[in-house]
């Protein structure tokens, strides 16, 4: 589970409509708004970084976006994702005080 804080900047006239659009998107919560400067703070919750990046792209593709960039990331409690590392690094017998098997191949 990835949780990221994202800063979105739009022209001040568009803040309201942007907030509505963002609220309608999966995994997105709007937390803070500074209407005068067009700044909106959202969080995004996503299963994987792929989804996270795609989510960010989705936001950037909205009309009127000046900037959408991540600022904060929390990576507690996602050790299950370790299965995804490259096969040669995912040696089951890998014990860090021993020699990684593939070094001696």
């Amino acid at each position, binding site marked *: *589970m*990835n*949780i*990221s*804080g*994202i*800063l979105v*900047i739009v022209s001040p006239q568009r803040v309201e409509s942007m907030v509505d659009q963002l609220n309608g998107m999966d995994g997105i*919560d709007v*937390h*803070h708004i*500074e209407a005068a400067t067009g*700044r909106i*703070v*959202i*969080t995004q*919750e996503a299963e*994987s*970084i*792929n989804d*996270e*990046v795609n989510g960010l792209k989705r936001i950037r593709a909205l009309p009127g976006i*000046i*900037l959408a*960039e*991540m*600022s*904060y*990331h*929390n*990576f*507690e*409690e*996602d050790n299950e*994702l*370790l*299965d*995804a*590392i*490259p096969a*040669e*690094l*995912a*040696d089951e017998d*890998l014990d*860090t*005080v*021993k*020699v*990684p098997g*593939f*070094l*001696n191949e």
Partner: protein
Amino acid sequence: MDVTRREFLKTSAAAATATAAGITIPVTALAKSKEAEAGVQWDKGVCRFCGTGCGIMVGTKEGRIVATKGDPDAPVNKGLNCIKGYFNGKIIYGKDRLTQPLMRMTDGQFDKQGKFQAVSWERAFDEMEKQFKKTYKDMGPHGVAVFGSGQYTIPEGYVMAKLMKAGFRSNNIDPNARHCMASAVVGFIQTFGIDEPAGNYDDIEHTDTVVTWGANMAECHPILWARVSDRRLSNENVKLVNLTTISNQTSDIADTEIVFKPGTDLAIQNYLLREIIKRDAVNHGFVKKHCVFATGPYDIGYGMRATSKYAFDAEKDIQAKELKITLDKDEAIAQRRKAGEVVEQKNTKKPVKHWMIGFDDFKKGVEPYTLDFVAQLSKGDPDEDLESFKAKLKGLADLYVDQGRKVTSFWTMGFNQHYRGSWVNEQIYAIHLLLGKQCMPGNGAFSLTGQPSACGTAREVGTFAHRLPADLVVFNPKHRAFSENIWKVPAKTLNPKVGSHITKIMRDLEDGSVKWAWVQVNNPFQATANANHWIKAARKTDNFLVVSDPYPTVSAKVADLILPTAMIFEKWGLYGNAERRTQAWREQVAPPGEAMGDVWQGLEFAKRFKLKEVWGEQAVPGLAADGFENGKLPSVLAEAEKMGYSPEDTLYDVLFANKDNRKVKWPDNSVSKGHANHIAEKLGDGWFPEKALFDEYRQFGVGHAHDLAKFDVYYRDDVRGLKWPVVDGKETQWRFNEKYDSYCKKGSGFDFYGKALKALPGGDLDKVTNKEKTSLAGKAKIFFRPYAAPPEQPDENYDLWFSTGRVLEHWHTGTMTRRVPELHRAVPTAQLFMNPSDAEARGVKRNDVVWIESRRGKVKAVVETQGRNRPPKGYTFAAFFDEGVFVNKVCLDVTCPMSKEEDFKKTAIKVYKA
């Protein structure tokens, strides 16, 4: 994860983001976020990856890094992070971290052919020492080498440079940064007489025009690109132009994309120079007062070996071009010669020499570069209409010459990794200087870097084969004397002979002129072009290779001894970014197992050498400098005794833990604030090596336009790095501009005070005509450099261009980022980006596996025809992070002859279905 915890984390993420953006949030939200972060200790840090130098906050809890966030107080990134930066905390938790030294052994003895087995540090150093001393005795200081790094912290680079140069009297230390920005360095030294940019990142917010040349900033410098995008989108007058050989993500928000043929950036630059003159846009006042014109020889080769003895049969035709070439029709026009003329490469030994010319000569030089000539030569997309391409070049000239417009040019590897990389660097300054658009807010040519301390360590500390700290060089007797004085070592300890650059160290291992090498903070056996040669060389029976790394990399696999190494936030360190900003961090968590920092490894190795073993007379073949007997470094032992040293003293005692440095005590609570220092604690002799050595190092630059602040200053809570020169506690925003730079002469306006190469003979475009040297004190040089054709180009057999580079999600050879599951999942493997019609013509489609084959080797990759990179017909690209798609087996090891930086961008390949 339960719902309450998740909500807490979201509140916390939102509060951090709002704080970063300077948005006031309700006190209740702030309180909630504090609750979510209860027990997390935050401290400032610097990103481990590219040369941008983003500030990050590192959160630790119970001895583990649990979160990172963009540092809202960091002026570079203002609280933002890119996707890699985001995962800084995770790179240290890869499942296969090395935690014990590993050595190839059979029956309890070191054996080159043996299997890796865990050994103690003591045993590891014993073997390292034994092998070193054997080679050193047989071959002298030039028989050993260190592969250094642009990712060394400043103290790490300093320890190794001093140990090699003053201790072992060898200049065979060269960083992977050679592959990354050596051409930029040559451009700086040649043009300004001093290294590193005049401007800073604030140029982005000041400029009206951003031109990127061979820099895919959207993927490779995303945070700076966010600043550029912000500037572009918030101001309609701002224009962006992206010059590239393949259509990439940087093109996505550019106003104009110019796709050019590899190597023809040189021609486009000359077109712009010609146009500036034709349109009467030369800033004559500025040029007359602050600049001179210069040129040099064209027949400087391509940085390959001069012999074909070690070449594979298939690469001999290209290698032969090191000796002579036949000019093609475009080169002939560009160089005012005849097509078909055979040109012997006579200046391969002195490619850097140059002389002053007049403005009329300069004009004559650029005269052939008309729009018609340059457009037909440089158009990179065969499907683009020539007239449309011409209009784009003309439009680019319009932007540069516009008097009311500020222009910032950025570049990275497209310029630097180039068979004429130093020339293209010089030429971009030529454009800005001729216009008088340099060293002012928003106006200037700005070299971006790729590694976190390519500037701060590799360049400023001088971990290059020819450098000493603060722009000093080993071949200058005054510079050596100055360094010997600061280092308190006898006169003539330092070796005046330039050592081997990183590609040459590889070649030395292959031909037997280096037999002991230590790899630190880099992965050169994956990152060096033409890798098949070097992997074989590493395994040669009489070579001994040590690799220090946290992970089992390609380089580790071909080593004889692997030393487990502490990573970024497991040690104290300082980095210097591309805008001259020096930044520091503390040790946040302990390294795992027996892993130890590189500083400790260097110091511990130094303990094993007595002065009498290294400071006696040493043979250095080819050494022929003033004051030295040919081929020999003298014994300095007698002089050392006069200075109070004993021949029995160790290099550790004399160079590092000496009387002065031991006064700098660990623990040091005022700066450590409760953080540990595993290195000081393991040494256990009461000194604080990082601080003592940094404050010793800074003596080189103080008063010499390289002033750094004291160690403690960088650790202050209110400091987020400082841009050197730091004079009277104040950083310098724009160098060479009197308004901002206290080193400029009063009343000068601009003062290019750099001291290197500032006396030149005079001549015309072809030769020196007046040998008497004239001083150019205070002036910058505007070079004329002609277009020269790439030595390897597609032909009937190898019919496609191939370039390598980065993707956003991974960094360099992927040894860190591939161990972050999220990043690996995002981009698990390097794809071969190609044009759909090229794929179709070869009977392959998207997701097919193909062979990529060049004269040097072949690798398999999966084809991508629709991704983020969209090459025109005839061009291909694959990133180099993936050891499974080992693209450097394919790449050509041509270098810029001046900078010795490899050209990873122009190999001819063929592609066929696997």
